[in-house]
Each structure stands twice: as C-alpha cells, then as structure tokens.
C-alpha cells in the first residue's frame, strides 16, 4: 500500500427493491495502474461502476478521490471530477459527428467553432491511432471505432480515473491490441484504469491488479501475477457449484439411441452464416464461443427470430419451414432469448400474463385462456419453479432478475415444448437460481425434452451438456463430446488450437 491511492471506495452499499446489489464493497485504485474488476454476471460490477459514475446514488459507504471525500451526484458531476466511463453499450450520440461527440457536454463557450474542434479532434485521433475522421458521423463508424472515440473523449478530458466497462466485447483481435496499447500509454501517463471484462486472457495480458466480487460482496484484491487463472475462476464462481457432477458416458449412449428431433442443413439468416445442426430427443447440447462468435445468432435462426435466408429444416424427420417464431412454436420449439429485458419479459404485464403468453399465442387469438385457468397455471408454475413474487398479479418488471428468468422459463414450459433453446438463461442471476435452472435442464432432458443451452460460463455448459458445438467468427469450428468435454479442450477449440 505504498503506492499513491487515487480512488478509494469503502463499504459501498446499494439496494434495489428486494435485492442488496452491493453489500459493503471496498475498492481502491492506484495511480497509473490497470485494475481489473472481475466477477460473474450479477456479481455487482456494473452496479459498483454505476455508483462510481453517478448513475446510481449509493445507500451507504464513502468515496475518496485523491484523498478527498466526494459525493457523485450525476454523470456530469463524475466527469467534472475526473472520472470518465466508456460503457459496454455505447453511450454516444450516433446522429452527431465524431468531433462533436468528443466535445459535447463539456465546459465551453456558447459558440462552437467546429473547425477548431475538428482540428483538435483529428490530432487526438491521430495521436491515439484511432482510424476515424473528426467530421465523420459517429453512427457511420464501426462499433470498435465508436468505443475508441469514447475513450479519446475521456483522454482529452484529462480524466484521472478511466472506467472501461466490457470494452472489448465487440472488438476483433487487432482492435483489442490497439486498445491495450492505448490503455498502457494512459497508464504511463498516470491514469488509473478500471477494466471490466469477461475475457480472462485479456485480464492477464493487460492488468496489474484484480478485484473479485461475488454476489454483491468483495471476495478480495490480488496482484495479477500472484493469482493463477484457475484460482481466479474458483474465486469468481465460488465453491458451491461443485456438487453437480458431469454427465457420464452412459448418458451419451442413452441419447444416441434416441431419434433425431430437429435437423438443419445450411440454415442461414440475415445475422447467421449457413450452418448444420441437429439435436436428438432428450439431448442437451450447447453452443459455445466468445461473445459475437455467432452462437446466439445461430439459435435465433433455428427459432426464426431473424429473417431466415436459406437451408432445409426437418422436425421429427419431416421437412418443415420455420421462418417466423410462431411457426417454430407450432413445431414444439421454445426460445428463451439472450436479452431478458429487451426480448424476454413484458415488464408491465403481471407474472400470470407473462406465464400464459406463449401458450395463448399457440392456442390462437380466438381461444383465450380463461381467468381461472390462467390463475391455476400461474400458481402451478410459481410453485414448481419456486418463483418469488408478491402475488401472481405483480408486474414481472418488479421481480429480481432470477425470478424474471424463471417466469420466462415457466412461459415456455407451459407450452410443453419438445425442444427448448435457452440462450444465457443464467446471466445476471444469483447462484442459487443458477443451480435450480441447471437442474431443471437436466430434469427436462430426462423427460425427453431436447435442450440447447448457451452460456458464457464454460463450466456451466460442461456440467449440463453432453455435446458442445464450438463457434468462432460466425462459423462452427468444432464439436466436442465425451472425453473431450473439459475446460482445456473447449478453450483450445475456441482459440483455434493454439491456446
């Protein structure tokens, strides 16, 4: 603790209705270091950062910047104090030019000299090696460049603390290297960088120190070189999950004996490259790969969520056409979307209405489920899945993430699907619920339901799936079964045999 502490957060608490998102978290950042903030989805990383940037107001604790006690009231306030953030989802204005995005919202005169600004912006862009022109419309730049423009903005604001929230998730390798170079340069200039990411290799490549959070609590702070990767993972995940054992080989044999339920050849959509895929009755398989590898896009194509361009599909051996979600549902396919808030829940509708929605659609508009019937369904599934809700008429938006996910699961289970696609069903939910969902998947498989499971957490997939389809750069690059189903092999295949 000899180094100068730039930022210290002590005992930070943040409460949301029904959830304690941060429970007395400590965090400290030194001058000129890259500090990785690690934790699973739902560990509280985003909340901590939003507290630090003034998006949320903390319910307890203190923040010190350069030794002074500070209160951060708004994003504007944070910026003025020298705390800049680049968010995962880009928070610039696509309808303005690059230079405007770099300078807007900062102290300036009432009249804007575009030429001066553009010149200055070009200088910064050139210095940082960002391939963009200042006069370009931001919306016309690639996502990576937009991200870098956001960083350029922060750099030019002489920030003391730079927060990068998942900056690499939409970048390719070259762009990542460019970003890392930028980060190292800034570190050299004495900027403290908080780096949030999912990619472990990147943490070890660039960071000096790691803080791990789990379930809204601090696990610990470590020097990167003193913490082996395996230990980091175990600290992030915790020990509780070890009770579930891998599926045995006998399982494979049982599955191989079953008929093929769904088969696609050369299936492609506006988002997904052509691919082949099949699943047997009662099989649990999974798509894995990094974010943006095309795993979600592929399952969306199976469900007809994006516009399907080509390929042949058979369900139970019969050729069928699935171009819209409703057709997939008619063939007994259910799909739990990756983005729960955007594509899953209907927030203002009640738990009951959310649960019966898919079944109602399958029944058709002229056969409404009666009130008493729907109440019975809702009660049944609230009990079966142990959904924690005040009542069945509570708006689903006010439930916690895990319970929202269970409601959507209930929605699909109610349709009694033959094939269920679960895209990141455990993202951002607590460990207990994760376990429940994994158990549920295995139980469904035993009952003969086919399940395709996608998760960012490889461990989770290894525990549930008997076959893993590995994707890289929007193509399937490998299929792992049996003995090959282990962390090393998966990582190797994802990385392309080199890792």
């Amino acid at each position, binding site marked *: 603790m000899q180094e100068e502490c730039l930022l210290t957060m002590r005992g930070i608490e943040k409460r949301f209705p029904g959830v304690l998102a941060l429970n007395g978290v400590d965090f400290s950042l030194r001058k000129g270091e890259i500090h990785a903030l690690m934790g699973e989805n739902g560990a509280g990383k985003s909340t901590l950062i939003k507290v630090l940037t003034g998006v949320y107001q903390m319910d307890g604790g203190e923040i010190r910047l350069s030794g002074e006690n500070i209160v951060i009231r708004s994003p504007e306030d944070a910026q*003025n104090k020298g705390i800049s953030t680049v968010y995962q989802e880009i*928070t*610039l*204005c696509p309808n*303005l030019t690059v230079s405007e995005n770099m300078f*807007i919202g900062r102290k300036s005169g009432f*009249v*804007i000299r575009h030429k001066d600004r553009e010149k200055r912006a070009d200088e910064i862009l050139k210095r940082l090696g960002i391939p963009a022109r200042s006069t370009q419309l931001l919306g016309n730049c690639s996502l990576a460049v937009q991200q870098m423009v956001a960083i350029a903005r922060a750099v030019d604001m002489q920030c003391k603390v730079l927060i990068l929230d998942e900056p690499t998730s939409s970048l390719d390798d070259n762009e990542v290297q460019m970003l890392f170079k930028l980060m190292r340069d800034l570190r050299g200039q004495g900027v403290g960088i908080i780096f949030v990411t999912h990619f472990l290799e990147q943490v070890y490549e660039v960071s000096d120190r790691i803080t791990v959070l789990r379930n809204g609590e601090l696990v610990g702070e470590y020097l990167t070189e003193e913490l082996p990767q395996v230990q980091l993972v175990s600290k992030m995940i915790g020990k509780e999950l070890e009770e579930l054992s891998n599926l045995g080989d006998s399982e494979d044999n049982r599955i191989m004996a079953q008929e093929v339920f769904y088969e696609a050849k050369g299936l492609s959509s506006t988002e997904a490259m052509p691919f082949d895929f099949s699943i047997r009755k009662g099989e649990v398989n999974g798509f894995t790969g990094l974010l943006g590898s095309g795993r979600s896009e592929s399952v969306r194509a199976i469900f007809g969520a994006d516009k399907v361009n080509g390929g042949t599909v058979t369900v139970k051996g019969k050729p069928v056409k699935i171009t819209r979600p409703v057709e997939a549902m008619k063939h007994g396919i259910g799909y739990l979307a990756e983005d729960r808030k955007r594509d899953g829940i209907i927030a203002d509708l009640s738990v009951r209405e959310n649960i019966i929605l898919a079944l109602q659609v399958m029944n058709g508009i002229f056969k409404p489920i009666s009130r008493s019937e729907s109440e019975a369904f809702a009660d049944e599934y609230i009990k079966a899945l142990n959904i924690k809700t005040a009542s069945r008429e509570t708006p689903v938006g006010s439930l916690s993430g895990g319970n929202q996910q269970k409601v959507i699961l209930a929605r699909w289970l109610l349709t009694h699907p033959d094939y269920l696609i679960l895209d990141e069903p455990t993202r951002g939910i607590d460990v207990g619920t994760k376990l429940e969902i994994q158990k549920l998947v295995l139980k469904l498989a035993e009952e003969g339901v086919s399940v395709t499971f996608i998760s960012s957490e490889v461990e989770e997939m290894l525990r549930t799936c008997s076959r893993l389809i590995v994707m890289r750069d929007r193509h399937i690059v490998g299929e792992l079964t049996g003995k090959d189903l282990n962390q090393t092999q998966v990582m190797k295949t994802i990385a392309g045999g080199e890792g």
Partner: protein
Amino acid sequence: MKNLLKRKEPLTDTQLLMTITIGIFCIMYILAMVLLGGGFLRAQQIFDMLNDNASLIIVSCGLTIVMIGGGIDISVGAVTSLVVMSCAIYLNKGGNIFVSVLLAIGIGLAFGLVQGFLISYLEIQPFIVTLAGMFFARGMTTILSVDPQKVTHKGFLNLHNNKEIRIRWLGHRVPNGNIIPAEMEFGVVIALIIVIIVFLLLKFGRLGRNFYAMGGNQQSALMLGINVKKTRFLSYVICGFLSGISGYVFLMHTAAGNATNAAGMEMNAIASSIIGGTLLTGGVGNVIGTFFGVMSLTTIKKIVVSSGLNDPWWQSITTGGMLCFFILLQSVVLGRRQKRKNK
C-alpha cells in the same frame, strides 16, 4: 479533385432529407413556371408566399427546435392567436407600440416557461401539456374578445401601411409600361432573420448541438454530461418566445385580431417541419429545411389554385397527398439507409 471528393463525408440524415425537400420544391416551382406560367413567372409570387406565411415560418422554426429535441408543441398556433388578440386590444386601448411588442414576447415566453417546466421538470407528456396550453390560449382568446378587433391605433397603422419594402429590380412590367415593384413586408425580414439566427444556433451554438444530442439519444446525452432537463426546458422556452414574435408579425400582416386567427397553424407548422426533414423522433432536422417545407406547402396550394381546381377541397387534399408522399419517401429513404448501415 479525386482526393477532394473522397474526403467529403456522406450526407447526414438531416442533410439528405433537407436536400430532397429543396430539390422537390425547386422541381415543383420550375414545373409550375413552365406549365402554368402567369403569376409563377413573377418574383412577386414568391414574395406573396413569404408575406402570407412569415408568422408560420417563425412558428415552424420554434417547433423544429422542439422536435429536434425529441418533443412536440401543439400550442404554437393558439399562442400566436392569443398574442394577436391581446396586442390588438392593447393597441386599441391606446397602448404604446414598444410595450405591445414586449407584451407579445411576454405572453409567448410565459407559455414557453410554464409548458417547459411541466414537461421537463415534472415529466408530464409534452402532448398533453401543450394540448392544454392550446386549449388555454384558444379559450383566453375568445374570453378577450369574440368579435374581430380591427386595430385603430394610428402609430401601428402607419407601421402597418408603410411596412412594405419595395424592390424595383424584381418588379414586373404591366402592359402600360410601368414597373410595379416587388413588395415584401417587414415581417418577412424578421422571419428570415429568425431563420438565420436559429440556423446558426443549431449549427454553432452549444445549446443547439445539445438539442441534437438530446433528441438523438436522451440516455447518451445524459451520460455525456448534458443537463437534459434544462436543455429540454430551454427548447420549449425558445419555442414559446418565437410563438410570441410570430403573433406580432401576424398582427402586422393583418392589423386585426380575430378569434379564429392562425387556426390550424400548429398542424401546418408540424407538417412544414416534417416536409423539411425534421423527424418527430428527434435528433434530425434543420430550419432551412423547415423554411422550404413552408414554401413547398404554400406552392402546392398556389399550384392547385392556378391550375383551375377551384373546388374548395382540392387544396387540402393535395396538401395531404404531398404530406403522405414526403412521409413515405422519408420512411423509405431512411429505412434503406439503416439497412445498408447494418450490412
């Protein structure tokens, strides 16, 4: 040369939509000159269009600002009407001209301040707030006077009667050889100055750029450190202020207050803004486009009259048709752009 072309940025949505509007306006006007001739060949035609629509131009500028910021204000026509009536009555009671101008601006600002406060700080839906504003202004107008109020104030009438600016070289020759100069009202000058000021504000003003940022993505604007509430508040205040000026310009044009003044002006202003390429979703738009939006709307009406479609319904039916054409065109153009970008 090639290098020069290469460095040019592709048109932004704002520029693209504005270019389309100006292009279509020019084509329409040239076609009218060629096919209909007559009045369209005289410069006075354009001045007439400006004279009749000076206040609409001013109101549309204000509305464009609000719409760029992602809001809507449907009270502008009613506020204009209230200003006309109040100033007419005040002048008839022997008021001072200077004070009457202050009165006009004061009324406009008051509406802007109250509506802006309700919308920005109490977060009430702008449509409802400005609808109430519209009701209130219309009601107040009739409470002030149901009967038309012809202004009898001498000083004002002098201003009203001598308000034209005569431009000889743009005039036209009548059969007896005399030249009738083109006439432009003083209100047009005010309108054009306002167009230029608002254009500069939106292009070079810090506030103006904040309007675009707020309309483009409110969340982003907040994250970028813009005080969104204050910015939104100011957009309504400016709009109210311009409605006040618009009312005074209207009075200078008619020299009479009437309860039905500026009826339907809010919808004309919205239509003009849309034709000019301002999107109701916010973040896209330009007052130059709005100006040409007003001119296009007027031109189509003039064309309908000149081409002998004398039945009273043709004007609004063609206006509706043109509106439909523009809205669909914009939807298709922007839709295709979006698709290309995604690829």
